């Protein structure tokens, strides 16, 4: 029996504890709500986490850079990137999975001395953490990008008027437009 089988067998427990460890990074008030409210629209955070954990788990066992899993990981990180966390806190939940694995598999690990296999599993978690880090940075940058973009949108016409915005594709049209405008302004 290899470690993947054992992990699969304990899937439900591992998933539940994994998700619950993430939830517990929130205040106790929020975590009960995130855990208990099952409506995906009334509770997008809890829903995303529990859905995401399942996908992450599958990747862990199968060792494929499964697009679906990465997508779900991305969704979790996307949420945590705008919540009240430091970067390490935002991604740290993946490492808490290691804790879950070790605790859940403690008996089997000792009996079958599967530590090497465990290391393999853990390195998959490390890989995912790296992916998560990339996502995290991507979304942090996005947040800053949005700040700039929103500012531009807000005064779109003013910037356009000051010739600060110009679409390359519309270059030709813009020239004509600016001409007529120049005339109108006279």
């Amino acid at each position: 029996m290899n470690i993947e089988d054992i992990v699969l067998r304990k899937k439900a427990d591992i998933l539940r504890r994994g998700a619950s460890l993430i939830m517990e990074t929130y205040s106790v008030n929020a975590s009960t709500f995130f855990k208990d409210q099952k409506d995906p629209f009334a509770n997008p955070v809890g829903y995303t986490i529990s859905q995401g954990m399942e996908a992450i788990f599958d990747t862990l066992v199968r060792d494929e850079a499964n697009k679906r899993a990465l997508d779900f990981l991305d969704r979790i990180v996307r949420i945590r990137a705008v919540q009240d966390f430091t970067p390490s806190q935002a991604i740290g939940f993946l490492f808490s999975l290691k804790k879950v694995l070790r605790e859940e598999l403690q008996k089997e690990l000792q009996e079958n001395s599967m530590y090497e296999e465990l290391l393999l599993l853990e390195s998959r978690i490390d890989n995912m953490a790296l992916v998560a880090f990339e996502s995290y940075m991507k979304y942090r940058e996005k947040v800053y990008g949005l700040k700039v973009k929103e500012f531009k949108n807000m005064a779109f016409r003013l910037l356009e008027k000051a010739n600060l915005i110009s679409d390359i594709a519309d270059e030709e049209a813009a020239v004509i437009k600016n001409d007529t405008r120049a005339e109108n302004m006279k």
Partner: protein
Amino acid sequence: MSDVLKPAELSKINYKPPRKEWMKTPVNFKHGMYIYPAKAKNLKYLDMPNPREWSPTDKDWKLPENWKEIVLEGMRERLGKYRSFKIFMDICVRCGACADKCHFFIGGGDPKNMPVLRAELLRSIYRGHFTKSGKIFGSLNGARELTVDVLKEWFYYFYQCTECRRCSVFCPYGIDTAEITMMGRELLNLLGCNVNWVIEPVANCYRTGNHLGIQPHALMDMFEMMLDDIYDRTGIRVKPSFNRKGAEILFVTPSADYFAEPGIYTCMGYLVLFHELGLDYTWSTYASEGGNFGLFTSHEMIKRLNAKIYAEAKRLGVKWILGGECGHMWRVMHQYMDTMNGPADFLEEPVSPVTGTKFENAKSTKMVHITEFTADLIRNNKLKLDPSRNDSLRVTFHDSCNPARAMGILEEPRYIIKNVCNNFYEMPENTIREQTFCCAGGAGLGTDEMMETRMRGGLPRANAVRHVHEKYGVNRLACICAIDRATLTTLMEYWVPEVKVTGVHEMVGNALVMEGEKERTLTLRGDPLKETEGEVNV
């Protein structure tokens, strides 16, 4: 392999916040979660108290010496003036029905964003200073002393509420956090603790008539550009009038519609619609702002800014007023304007010049919502529409908070959308109509300084959009609010980048078949009309 960390050691990292009582947890101002304070020059221009340079992260907020007296006196005065305030302070039973209804709590999990606790921030002071039981039992009964820390907490959390009223829908006593937040902000304003994102638009609006402080000649430039774009798309030169005396209708819309992307396209929608109808109407440069950030400041400021609308209608001698797509503007027009600045007895009961329909429901205020006006046109077959022009769009509709929960405009926009486009899909039931989720940028929070807070607060809205995007391939989010058009655009970009935001009248403008138009190849936005947007898959 014995040096594998034991579980207990691994678990030493503990993110759980200490389990302290909420009163003993002071706020910690972090970047991205507060808005910069109002600049002194803006406060001075508005004759508002305590203009100074300061920052919420400062230890010393440079409060007036007798600040405590000012706040308590302010509270006493407001308890005497607003039954709502007094009742809402007294009757909450803390049943918790509201707790998980706030988008900021749902998306972030900060317990003080539970509406009940947000109100308790104020209630605890009320108990401590205005009730016997609070004075006797103190913190045991949820009472506390007014301190600078309390003030900081107020500032933090009352500018983390978008006054969307969602919690009020679920409260068995109708306790409205918007009302409580408004009181909290009024008290903060007495000390000069306000945010620039609100006060600057207020000052600008007061002086120039609009939030960005655009002067009349520049306003005309903005319109020129829009008119050029309309000519470019339709081949028709629309000629609106400004400050024209004797027009039948005064049209008022938020200024973001002339300046901001994608608001301008909605504005182009109005322009082509009115042109096609040959409507006898005028814009005003003096009353060029429908939005009213006074609502996010104080009741007095609402009135000071709103006064322009009736004053201008009277000066121009119009018969009635038509209002554009906006959320909080309509809260003011619907629930405050007539009471504050009425009676509008110099106007006439609104009648549509095109269909002859009497707008009975606006017979006192004399101001009609544009979706009521347009829905009536469509119902009476007065518009030639080609909904297939919007075929590249798969649309869902976001009910903006104020039209939904302070007016009840739910069917009119839907009726219009269904007539101007062929693909309309509703979001899940508990996220629309009176249960709609806020964009998280209303009530003066829509600034980039609050980006993180806004993104997480907007998650419930975005999540429902993502659902219809994945299920039906929705790629356009329609709304009837200028703040929505600005903030949802950003929100979508973060959570569901495939979905763009539009005003309802932008789609009307696209579908409208105009007399003498050239064959349309571009939308008002300048996108190719027949683009099939390849990746739409159902």
